[in-house]
């Protein structure tokens, strides 16, 4: 992927080779976040760059190269979050389904529905410390990138999700599988 021809890969191919690419594109260039700024799977990176104000594909590729490091920087461990919760300096936003949230949740975590999301995007100070929680820590990166792309500067994801929280912080919280 990191060869010059990577700019001629389709977005589908690029995302397969570098799963964090879409997050990097939205965080940095406001591309791929929602329907209005998205791309087609069969467009090449070069085409996406061309119709986004003629972005320099080489620079964009370099940003994508750094995607995994950026993803890593977004992570925060369950024990760290526990300490932050004790000092009341963080808000937990749970992006799992309503069923999962109602069955098992971290005390104080808020269920992120569309209405809460709009409220936060509109009214919260951009420096608010927000931590996204999902089941096992993969999807929350997308939420974090979406909020980062909207200007939030202090966004983290719970590493390993609520499953890791059950293991590392609160064993009374049952672990579960999704059927």
């Amino acid at each position: 992927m990191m060869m010059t021809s990577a700019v001629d890969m389709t977005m589908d191919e690029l995302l397969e080779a570098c799963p964090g690419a879409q997050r990097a594109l939205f965080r940095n260039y406001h591309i791929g976040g929602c329907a209005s700024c998205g791309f087609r799977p069969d467009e090449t990176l070069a085409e996406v760059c061309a119709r986004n104000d003629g972005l320099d594909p080489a620079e964009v590729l370099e940003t994508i190269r750094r995607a995994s490091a950026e993803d890593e920087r977004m992570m925060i461990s369950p024990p760290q979050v526990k300490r932050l919760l004790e000092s009341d300096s963080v808000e937990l936003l749970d992006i799992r389904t309503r069923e999962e949230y109602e069955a098992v949740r971290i005390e104080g975590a808020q269920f992120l529905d569309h209405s809460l999301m709009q409220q936060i995007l509109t009214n919260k100070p951009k420096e608010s410390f927000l931590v996204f929680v999902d089941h096992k820590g993969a999807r929350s990166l997308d939420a974090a990138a979406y909020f980062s792309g909207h200007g939030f500067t202090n966004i983290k994801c719970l590493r390993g999700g609520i499953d890791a929280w059950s293991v590392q912080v609160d064993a009374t919280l049952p672990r579960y599988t999704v059927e």
Partner: protein
Amino acid sequence: MNDDIETKIQAALHDPQNVGEMSGADAIGTVGSENCGDMLRMWVKFKEEGGRKVIDRATFQSFGCQTAIAVASVATELIRGKTPAEALAMSGEELASPLGKLPPMKIHCAQLVEGALRNALGGEETVAPASAPSLLDQFASPKTVRIKLQP
């Protein structure tokens, strides 16, 4: 984005105009998918004025991009009193003009509003430029799941 536009967008978001479903609308247009929340819908009501059919009022609902919401807020004000043809002739950039000149990367957000308006007024199916799942699709799609607690 320059500070002036950012300030205007934030002002529009803090006091968005014409938000919500309109009962008795004469036309409705949608862009995007309600299922994944990544959509913008517009309701339009017409009236007769000087022998012409003009837009009396337009409202919108959106769960998408913040800039799109700000654009929809100003656009629904801007199109009042215009004929459907006059409103259809407006580009996304024109609809967003009260906010100032959007940076190129935010022009898509105005095009989303333009698409919903075209869908409402012209019945024109607007194909969103994106068909790959967006970030919003991936983390905010409502799903129903069954879970099994581990003993």
